[in-house]
């Protein structure tokens, strides 16, 4: 087995400024009709293909990248992931920090007779996003200047470092047909009124998405004739199915990862797509029980991060020391505290808080429950009695929001995980003063932090950015409201003869898959 796990230092800040040295090419030899078939797994059913109305923060990029145009895709340069011009364009060039020039390929036709892909569609799609549910990705977007039928310029209203990577290359950078979208009233869900891409899809709810070659596609051919994406929500079932030979590629749980590292199934390979998740134990600094900084610091020292990584993640997750994920600028290598139950106990005694009763809220999935169980045991050692309260997604995601009832007042401690795009700017936006009661559930604020946040957005020098973001994480840590836990990697297992390509956000880039 070829172990392709390697720490990809995914992005350099310079990536933005550079022009693309290579562009995306689908690996297919033109129309070799030898029945090349791939079976992969989607871990959820899809809800919406409309980039304006993705639900729940988990875009169905896998399908969109097969059937819809976008200007850039994720790719690799010098072994590092970055954006690359997609097979839909002749070129994409960032002229300066606020202008991006692009030129579409000619003759790419929308399905259902909606004509050719044009600059107008690009302008329509991006402008539409500014009023959509995902407008936050487009705050820096100003307009698209149309040069001609195929070329144009994206204009930003301010320099915005992450725009290519977190917006255009992600699921929200998908381009729709103006005519087709308007023909169905301006939005759609699972049935795109027109597609344009190497594949067309057919979806059977709850079962699978079948991707087959688009007969109208005139661009590069992908390798596989057909791709069957089975919808399997349980990681364990998917792993079993992979072992039983029913899947060629699937994302796996950390427990399975540990097992496969130890004892890999025959003819298979593991690929880490990315580790852009950051998980921490949050504390409500305004809650009477946690108002005392000493109590929060005690908790920081009491939690045994190593046990959590071992116990709940089978040693496969990376230790976290802040909100910046591995491979990004500003990633810290250590925290300002360490696991020290003795000190934690004395802090608690100092604060006169022994016998404290706390409620730990967490999403109801197995790994989090295990992590919560370990935290529960850790805190018990220093005399804090913890009740674990598992919650389903709905109540979990609204418990700290002032607009969604009164739970935020009772909120004590919780395990939280956010995901980010491949730019360090992203995580910090949720912890600024304006976010208190929205996503800043820890409910603290700091003038220095606000200052640094603004500086970070405009700064393009990566060393400076690193300094800014490191300092910001220190500020967070000093509030005592954060116990850094893990960065969970998104790991896939696939047949070793398959060359698999993934977005750093953890989706399969199916048109780029091939068999060697």
């Amino acid at each position, binding site marked *: 087995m070829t172990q392709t796990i390697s720490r990809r230092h995914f992005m350099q800040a310079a990536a933005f400024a550079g022009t693309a040295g290579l562009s995306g090419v689908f690996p297919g030899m033109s129309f070799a009709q030898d029945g090349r078939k791939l079976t992969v797994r989607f871990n959820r*059913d*899809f*809800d*919406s293909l409309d980039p304006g109305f993705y*639900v*729940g*923060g988990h875009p169905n990029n896998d399908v969109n990248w097969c059937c819809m145009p976008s200007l850039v895709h994720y790719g690799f340069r010098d072994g590092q992931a970055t954006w690359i011009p997609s097979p839909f364009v002749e070129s994409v060039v960032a002229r300066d920090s606020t202008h991006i020039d692009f030129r579409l390929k000619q003759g790419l036709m929308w399905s259902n007779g909606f004509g050719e892909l044009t600059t107008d569609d690009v302008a329509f799609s991006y402008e539409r996003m500014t009023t959509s*549910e995902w407008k936050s990705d487009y705050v820096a977007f100003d307009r698209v200047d149309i040069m001609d039928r195929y070329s144009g310029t994206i204009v930003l209203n301010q320099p915005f470092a992450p725009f290519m990577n977190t917006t255009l290359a992600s699921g929200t950078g998908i381009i729709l047909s103006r005519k087709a979208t308007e023909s169905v009233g301006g939005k759609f*869900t*699972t049935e795109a009124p027109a597609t344009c891409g190497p594949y067309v899809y057919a979806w*059977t*709810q*709850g*079962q*699978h998405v079948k991707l087959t070659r688009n007969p109208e596609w005139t661009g590069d051919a992908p390798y596989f004739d057909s791709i069957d994406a*089975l*919808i*399997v*929500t*349980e990681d364990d*079932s*998917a792993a*079993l*199915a992979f*072992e*039983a*030979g*029913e899947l060629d590629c699937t994302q796996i749980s950390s427990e399975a990862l540990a097992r496969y590292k130890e004892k890999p199934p025959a003819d298979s390979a593991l690929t880490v797509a990315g580790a852009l998740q950051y998980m921490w134990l949050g504390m409500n600094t305004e809650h009477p029980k946690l108002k005392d900084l000493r109590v929060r610091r005690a908790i920081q020292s009491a939690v045994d991060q190593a046990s959590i990584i071992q116990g709940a993640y089978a040693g496969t997750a990376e230790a976290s020391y802040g909100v910046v994920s591995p491979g990004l600028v500003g990633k810290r290598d250590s925290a300002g505290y360490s696991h020290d139950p003795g000190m934690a106990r004395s802090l608690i005694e100092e604060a006169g808080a022994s016998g404290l009763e706390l409620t730990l809220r967490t999403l*109801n999935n197995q790994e989090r429950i295990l992590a919560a169980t370990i935290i529960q045991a850790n805190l018990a050692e220093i005399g804090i009695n913890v009740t674990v309260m598992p919650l*389903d*997604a*709905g*109540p979990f*995601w*609204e418990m700290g*929001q002032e*607009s*969604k*009832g009164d739970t935020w007042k009772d909120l004590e401690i919780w395990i939280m995980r956010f995901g980010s795009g491949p730019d360090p700017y992203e995580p910090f936006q949720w912890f600024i003063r304006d976010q208190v009661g929205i996503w800043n559930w820890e409910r603290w604020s700091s003038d220095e932090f606000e200052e640094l946040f603004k500086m970070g957005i405009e700064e393009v020098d990566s060393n400076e950015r690193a300094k800014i973001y490191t300092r910001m994480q220190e500020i967070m840590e000093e509030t005592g409201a954060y116990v850094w836990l893990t960065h969970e990697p998104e790991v896939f297992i696939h047949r070793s003869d398959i060359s698999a390509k993934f977005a750093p956000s953890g989706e399969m880039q199916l048109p780029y898959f091939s068999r060697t």
Partner: protein
Amino acid sequence: MLIYIVKRIGLAVLIILLAVLALFVMLHSIPGDPVSIALGPRATPEIQAAYAAKMNLDKPLFTQFLIFLGNVLTGDLGTDVFSNRSVAKTLLGQLPYTISLAVASLGWAVALGIPMGCISATKPNGWLDRITGLVSIGTIAVPSFLVSIWAILVFAIHLNIFPVIGAGDQGDLADMALHLVLPSFAVGLGWVGYLARMVRASMLEVMGENYIRSARAFGLTTQTIIYRYALRVAILPTITLIGVGFGGLLSGTVFAEIIFARPGIGKVIYDMVLNRNFPVVQGAVMMTVALYAVVTLASDIIVSILDPRVRESL
């Protein structure tokens, strides 16, 4: 007979209506704002308001119920807030998988369990009876979700005979049948023993009845007595039981669908419960209730056809 059936159908409808009411009350007594529960955290206030108006959540509760009931009666189970699809359409797409799993499970359990029970009952305490007794008690004792887990381990991984996940290629009947093997094995296994014991006990009781003795006194053959007389009566409580037990079977399919990653109503409920997709949960629960009501109705009607005494009661 006709009156019986009409009355029985009326009862079934009434039960479904009551169940719908119960469900409605349950869903509306959740702590929290139904709109934000339904839409999740990232929805804007405008979208929430639009949703509330669309779902009539801004109207009084009773009005909401009437609208809801009216919709249900016209086959409109609401709209999935996430995909904007009709819930009824979504569920109808899933229903065949649940039904085929239930039917396959029950089918092989009946095909095996009833003969097993008959054979045991003809020679009680014989060696065959002892073996079937052991087998049936063994199958009863293992809960279906354990069977599912263990079956996956043994059959799919170690033996690698049967497919583990999904329902197979649509349209490819052989493939779909193959995908049914393990789940229906897991769901039906407990029923084999259950039915075998049930039929055995029932047969033994019937064999002690006076009319069996009179049949013997008239010199009828053992074959006739067992299969035409005793079984004919002993099967009646079994049919009723299958109807009543269908609820338990549906619970079993929920586990099987989750573990085997099969599409179906149970899986939908589980997934949607975790996503808090309430319109779908609500519709799916209603559909299982209706399914159950239809099955018990069918079993009662079958019994009434087979048993003239029942026809004239009620």
